[in-house]
């Protein structure tokens, strides 16, 4: 047995050993996302920066693709992390899971290299299969698409077979059904049709339904497990809440898809469906806030892992503001006609993705590090606690700064380009040249530096936190009672 505070695989079960591999790649890809985002941000201010070397379109694509893939790696890692604990049995097909990890990682490296090496050229059948599929956010070429589906199916097999062999908890049941949707919906983004409206119709199934249905449910499962582990909340309570939230999310999130169908040539009834269900979408988020207050009052914020709990609280608020407030501000078709696809959307996207998803993955990585170091103390008076606090502050300050800056840019764009200029090509450039837009981009860049500094500090903290601790972890109330 390794000494307390030393990183040792002996402290982990099989699924958790695989999980830390996924977490490691997730953090590396998070770094790539920040790097390409910064480069794209500089190109907004100095359009000739890296001209002919690294196109803005490629930078932006890598920035967004890295986001999607690092979150996927994080989610898969988090599920492997909880799998043996939840099911009470070793992961079924762990070797296959390990193979999937290496294949997936290698595929991501190859795809990124191809993006960087082949930045321009004709779009033809060969390029769809080998270079870039051309669908925004899911640009991966067709071979990688098929690879992703195979990897997710292996992942599904690992999870479903393990729960079937062991015990099916409430969290496990919801998780397995959610993974069916996660794998199935990706197929909708591979559907080929020459009609652009139909193409967009299916493409949104991946983008919206992944994010506002399957990812939200996955996060609900992870949060339920996280609350049991960090605060000792009773399983029956978190599982009941998981069912309620899943029902609310599916009730509003699935047909909330309609707000993406407003302007792509789909029938007019989508205006009514999208408007109605989009108005309902904040309700589960408000429910989560009320329940968070209730639980905080009940458990007096005592926790076995302060950084993980802090990031989980950040998730509840980030999800509420990013998805709820920033989403509802421009979701009704009467205003969405002007804001759709402007920097306003980018503002909403930044805060929602960071608030709802990045936070929970970071929380799980803190949980993983704690156990990897032998279940070391991570509560009050922890050595070097300033690092996680400052990392969290800089990341949030940077994200809020970027969100506000993009909000101002989007407001100006929707006003000048859309409402006054009528969405013409000239109006697009006129809005981009406006002083409010330009100043907003400068402030976005300054906030981006804060975010990048926060990322560096976070990576440093994840590598070192708990290293000098010699105290064992404080058990949450429920676990202490069980022990």
């Amino acid at each position, binding site marked *: 047995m390794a000494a307390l505070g030393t990183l040792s695989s002996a402290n982990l079960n099989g699924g958790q050993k695989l999980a830390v591999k996924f977490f490691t790649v997730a953090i590396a890809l998070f770094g790539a996302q920040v790097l390409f985002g910064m480069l794209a941000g500089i190109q907004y201010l100095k359009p000739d920066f890296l001209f002919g070397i690294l196109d803005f379109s490629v930078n932006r694509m890598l920035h967004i693709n890295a986001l999607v893939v690092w979150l996927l790696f994080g989610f898969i890692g988090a599920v492997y992390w909880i799998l043996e604990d939840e099911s009470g049995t070793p992961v079924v097909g762990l070797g296959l899971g390990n193979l999937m990890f290496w294949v997936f990682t290698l595929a991501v490296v190859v795809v990124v290299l191809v993006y960087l090496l082949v930045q321009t050229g004709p779009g033809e059948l060969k390029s769809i299969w080998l270079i870039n599929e051309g669908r925004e956010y899911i640009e991966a070429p067709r071979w990688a698409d098929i690879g992703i589906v195979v990897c997710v199916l292996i992942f599904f097999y690992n999870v479903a077979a393990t729960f079937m062999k062991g015990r099916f908890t409430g969290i496990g049941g919801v998780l397995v059904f959610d993974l069916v949707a996660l794998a199935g919906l990706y197929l909708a983004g591979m559907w080929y049709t020459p009609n652009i409206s139909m193409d967009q119709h299916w493409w949104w199934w991946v983008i919206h339904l992944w994010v506002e249905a399957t990812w939200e449910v996955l996060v609900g499962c992870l949060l339920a497990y996280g609350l049991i582990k960090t605060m000792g909340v009773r399983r029956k309570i978190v599982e009941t809440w998981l069912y309620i939230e899943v029902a609310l999310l599916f009730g509003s999130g699935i047909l909330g898809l309609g707000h993406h169908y407003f302007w792509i040539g789909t029938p007019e009834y989508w205006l009514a469906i999208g408007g109605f269900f989009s108005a309902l979408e904040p309700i589960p988020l408000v429910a989560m806030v009320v329940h968070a*207050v209730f639980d905080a009052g009940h458990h007096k914020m005592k926790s076995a892992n302060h950084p993980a709990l802090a990031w989980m609280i950040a998730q509840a608020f980030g999800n509420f503001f990013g998805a709820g407030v920033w989403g509802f501000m421009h979701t009704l078709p009467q205003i969405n006609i002007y804001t759709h696809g402007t920097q306003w959307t980018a503002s909403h996207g930044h805060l929602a993705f960071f608030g709802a998803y990045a936070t929970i993955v970071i929380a799980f990585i803190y949980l993983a590090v704690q156990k990897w170091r032998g279940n070391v103390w991570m509560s009050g008076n922890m050595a070097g606690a300033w690092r996680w606090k400052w990392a969290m502050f800089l990341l949030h300050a940077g994200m809020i700064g970027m969100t506000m800056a993009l909000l101002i840019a989007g*407001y100006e764009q929707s006003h000048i380009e859309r409402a006054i200029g009528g969405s013409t090509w000239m109006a697009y450039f006129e809005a981009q040249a406006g002083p409010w837009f330009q100043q907003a981009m400068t402030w976005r860049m300054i906030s981006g530096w804060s975010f990048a500094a926060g990322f560096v500090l976070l990576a440093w903290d994840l590598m070192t936190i708990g290293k000098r601790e010699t105290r064992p972890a404080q058990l949450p109330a429920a676990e202490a009672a069980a022990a």
Partner: protein
Amino acid sequence: MIVEPVHLANFFTVFFSAASVILFGALYALLFAWSRVRGRPRLMAMAYAAYLGLAASVVTLGYAANLFNSGFWTFIVLLMLVGYLFAPHAIWHLCVGTHAEEDEMVKISQPR
């Protein structure tokens, strides 16, 4: 389905009132829950004041976004007003229901 786009002069009002709907909604829900958790009736009065803010924001949004020009969108406005009023009550009942057993255990474990 007739959608009348927002007039240029009402842009800011729409964004601001829509954000206020959700913020007042959260404030209402938070104060409601906190008042019940801590047993402080004064917070409940503040919670309903927050709901009044929410209702004013919804009506402002309705006018600024031309929602009252159609029956369907007027229904959405009414849905928001009624839904946000009762949602924290319903969620609170769920909270109490799901924690009932835990409360019972705390009572049993407490020394008399």
